[in-house]
């Protein structure tokens, strides 16, 4: 969550995986309706639900601490010669499997452009606007306290 979606040191695959991981199963299905059906995939691991420890760090030099455990669902599938992975928050098994299948399909150069245009980019755009909306609402509640210097 800390990496901004467009930070330059992330690969294309990292970017699409993070977009897919944040999209609900319904949203994924809705966007997949616009492209030809995905090739069949085979489950390699999962989908299974478990806990991961989220670690946090207070300040730049603070030591890491365990913030909380989060429920995640992971899945790995194979599609042809490609392997797709997904780890999504929550316990929606179908969402994890679908995200993993799309990750595998995106590694296939023949399918990539269509999927990027009709699945990943629209999802990224809606996630960006949702994020901007939250930031805008939060910004509206900002309170600037008077400092000692301006109090006369």
């Amino acid at each position, binding site marked *: 969550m800390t990496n901004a979606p467009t930070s330059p040191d992330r690969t294309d695959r990292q970017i699409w995986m993070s977009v897919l991981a944040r999209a609900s199963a319904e949203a994924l299905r809705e966007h997949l309706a616009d492209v030809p059906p995905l090739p069949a995939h085979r489950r*390699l*691991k999962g989908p299974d639900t478990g806990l991961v420890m989220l670690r946090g760090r207070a300040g730049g030099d603070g030591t890491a601490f365990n913030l909380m455990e989060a429920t995640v669902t992971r899945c*790995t599938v194979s599609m042809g010669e490609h392997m797709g992975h997904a780890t999504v928050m929550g316990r929606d098994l179908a969402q994890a499997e679908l995200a993993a299948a799309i990750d595998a399909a995106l590694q296939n150069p023949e399918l990539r452009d269509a999927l990027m245009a009709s699945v990943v980019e629209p999802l990224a755009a809606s996630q960006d606007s949702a994020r901007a909306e939250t930031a805008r609402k939060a910004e509206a509640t900002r309170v600037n306290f008077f400092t000692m210097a301006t109090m006369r």
Partner: protein
Amino acid sequence: MMQPGFADPVLDAQSAFRAVLEALSHPGRIIPIAPAPIPPAPLSPAMGALALALCDADTPVWQDGGAQAADWLRFHTGAPFAEAPAAMFLFATGRPPALSTLNLGTDEVPQDGATLVLNVASLKAQGTLRLRGPGIKDEVSLGVEGLPENFLAERAALRPHFPRGLDIVFCCGAQIAALPRTTEVI
């Protein structure tokens, strides 16, 4: 391309565990493992089943099956790889390392001794090996083809170290037979 592991990770691992328990409690008895996964060659299905049922992030593993087998084991078990003397499970498809160099446990914790899983050419209920020891009434015989040269002599040389020692599981296809450290080959 990555091969899948167990079709049902929980139930299949439990039945593989049960088969290993059965084999170790009745040395020399041939026990089928079903259902077994299909791991990449040269790992045998029985060997794959044992790896998936017994290995995890806490069990250092040694194997000689090559890169594909290593990828498969790492992906499905999450086990770290180790040099032969430090490994808890050894999956040998060819000649295993010298048995005396392996981890035999200590007198305080002999159960820490390694388990050697060895592919053999064939397993038959009757054969040249005559076995005696706990779990065997009087004597049983076991036919094993494709044992490495001097293997039984190397194993016999570990006997004075008891209770330290190695437990050995032979795999052939989807069948296993075990030779725990308590069993004597006569």
